């Protein structure tokens, strides 16, 4: 039975889990902070009481924005996966696997390198916005290419979808490699950072920008949730039920690419979140309503990514493991398992 009655209690449980992860993430890291200290720092914002400057800085300017970024990116990537899977009508579709992320990365890297040739300085926000737009365009180009190539009459040829994704990822990687030749030392660091994925570049400005864009995108997708649910029957069937399929697909793809693009622009390639989380939600919650699925997927994505980030911050402390490496280590076997499962169905 679809747990219609339980959906509120599920959300409450997920919120508690999320809160727990946030607190735990605040505590642990290269320097651990005690729970009392965190409470006193958080309390100091309300009561203006004096607290230790260094913990205040560590919590307010380093850990909190980083955790916020993890939650945002986790939710965004997971929801992107769930949505793109319905558009392609395939559980193996994922923004990273079909090349959206590397398309976005190449354009973002291109922007970083080329912006130095601009006659004027963009400033910090000009840089952020330009980077986001570049990543969005790169991701969009990759998506349109893969979709056109692999889908005819609403049926997606999985092999072509994945192979086109491989080709685009290779092309994006190659072209980014070319850019490296023209990159300065500092740009090179940015580009390397992208190819592994990391939340370490966080600050409140980025968090603010991502909050706005990701919230808009999620609301845009939720608005079409019922239509997406019907599109699970296939494009033709959905149109017989009165759904404007092409229009919905275009809107959803644009929102997805916008989210993925901006995540890639600021955190690099964090793969497999969009593959694993929607699948876990499907098998665990068995929820038919896509709107509810999006909510659960968002929560679970946020929890898992911030948890993963906590692991990468602590496992080799004081150094840091790029989070993209951890999600790949978890995600790749998961992907293989999904492939085997698909094979046994056919």
């Amino acid at each position, binding site marked *: 039975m679809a747990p219609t009655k339980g959906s509120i209690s599920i959300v409450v449980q997920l919120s508690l889990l999320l809160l727990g992860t946030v607190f735990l993430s605040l505590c642990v890291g290269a320097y651990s902070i005690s729970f009392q200290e965190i409470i006193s720092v958080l309390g100091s914002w309300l009561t203006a009481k004096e607290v230790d400057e260094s913990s205040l800085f560590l919590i307010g300017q380093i850990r909190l924005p980083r955790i916020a970024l993890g939650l945002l990116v986790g939710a965004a990537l997971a929801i992107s996966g769930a949505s793109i899977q319905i558009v392609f009508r395939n559980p193996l579709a994922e923004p990273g696997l079909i090349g959206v992320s590397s398309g976005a990365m190449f354009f973002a890297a291109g922007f970083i390198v080329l912006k130095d040739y601009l006659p004027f300085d963009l400033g910090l926000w000009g840089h952020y916005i330009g980077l986001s737009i570049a990543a969005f365009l790169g991701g969009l180009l990759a998506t349109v290419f893969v979709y056109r190539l692999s889908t005819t009459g609403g049926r997606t040829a999985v092999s072509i979808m994945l192979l086109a994704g491989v080709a685009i990822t290779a092309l994006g990687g190659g072209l980014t490699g070319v850019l490296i030749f023209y990159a300065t030392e500092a740009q090179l660091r940015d580009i390397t950072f992208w190819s592994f994925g990391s939340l370490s570049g966080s600050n409140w400005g980025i968090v603010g920008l991502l909050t706005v864009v990701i919230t808009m995108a999620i609301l845009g997708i939720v608005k079409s949730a019922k239509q997406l649910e019907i599109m699970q029957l296939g494009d033709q069937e959905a149109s017989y039920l*009165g759904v404007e399929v092409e229009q919905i697909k275009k809107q959803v793809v644009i929102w997805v690419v916008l989210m993925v693009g901006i995540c890639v622009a600021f955190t690099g390639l964090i793969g497999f979140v969009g593959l694993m989380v929607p699948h876990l939600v499907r098998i665990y919650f068995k929820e038919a309503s896509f709107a509810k699925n999006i909510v659960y997927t968002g929560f679970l994505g946020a929890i898992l990514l911030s948890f993963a980030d906590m692991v990468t911050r602590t496992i080799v402390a004081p150094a840091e493991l790029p989070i993209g490496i951890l999600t790949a280590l978890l995600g790749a076997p998961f992907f293989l398992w999904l492939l085997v499962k698909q094979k046994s169905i056919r």
Partner: protein
Amino acid sequence: MLNINNITVCLNGRNLLKEINFDLDENDFMVLLGGNGAGKSTLLKTLARSLPYRKGQILFRGENLAYWSQVELSQQRAVLSQNTFLVFPMNVIDVVLLGRYPYTQGGKPNAKDVTIAYELLDLMGVAKYAEEDITCLSGGEQQRVHIARVLAQVWESSLANPKLLLLDEPTSNLDIAYQHILLELLQDRVQKHGLTVLAVLHDMNLAARYATQIALLKEGKLLTVGRPQEVLTTDWIQRTFGVSSIIQAHPIFDCLQVSTY
């Protein structure tokens, strides 16, 4: 209900349908018969507005089909395609409730929608699976769920204002008992509650027994349309399928019985 005037459909340079002309009247149960590749599915898809036609005109309720809005059309006609399948798990009852989307438009299905959905699941013998995942059912059971879904879409129909149901091989995966259950149900809806049906079938005897009109297609051309008694003759069957046949009165029912050889 449907006036098909001189329709030609061309795909990839091949003429799949050539100058098709016929009318489908309200509260008729028309069956399309023809060999493989005769253009039955193409015709059905064209009438469902998912294939473009090159020439001619289709009128639905006297108005050009092309001008109907997607939503209005979805409230007046339902279509069952061949091989509809779901990739992701969904409960059977939720699949049938999708058939009510044209009336709820994203809102919560009301008590009437739910009643209709359960009634149809019961009629198609899949009520016991209501809360189960459709992807775990057998092919025939899945087909029965999808039939329930499209019927839910046109369930509120009346003799004065019947809705249209287009069915592409609805019996292909059904066992013989459910073939009869489905066609009897359709016949009952057509006669007593108002519904116009156009269905592609392969079995001439099912067509003879349940259809009010039969259309014969061959190589993209419409050979003839008429009442079963007019159309099911040795001559037409020979011309349509290239097989010989013996046609007799059915021993029990008031219809014809065809044996081919």
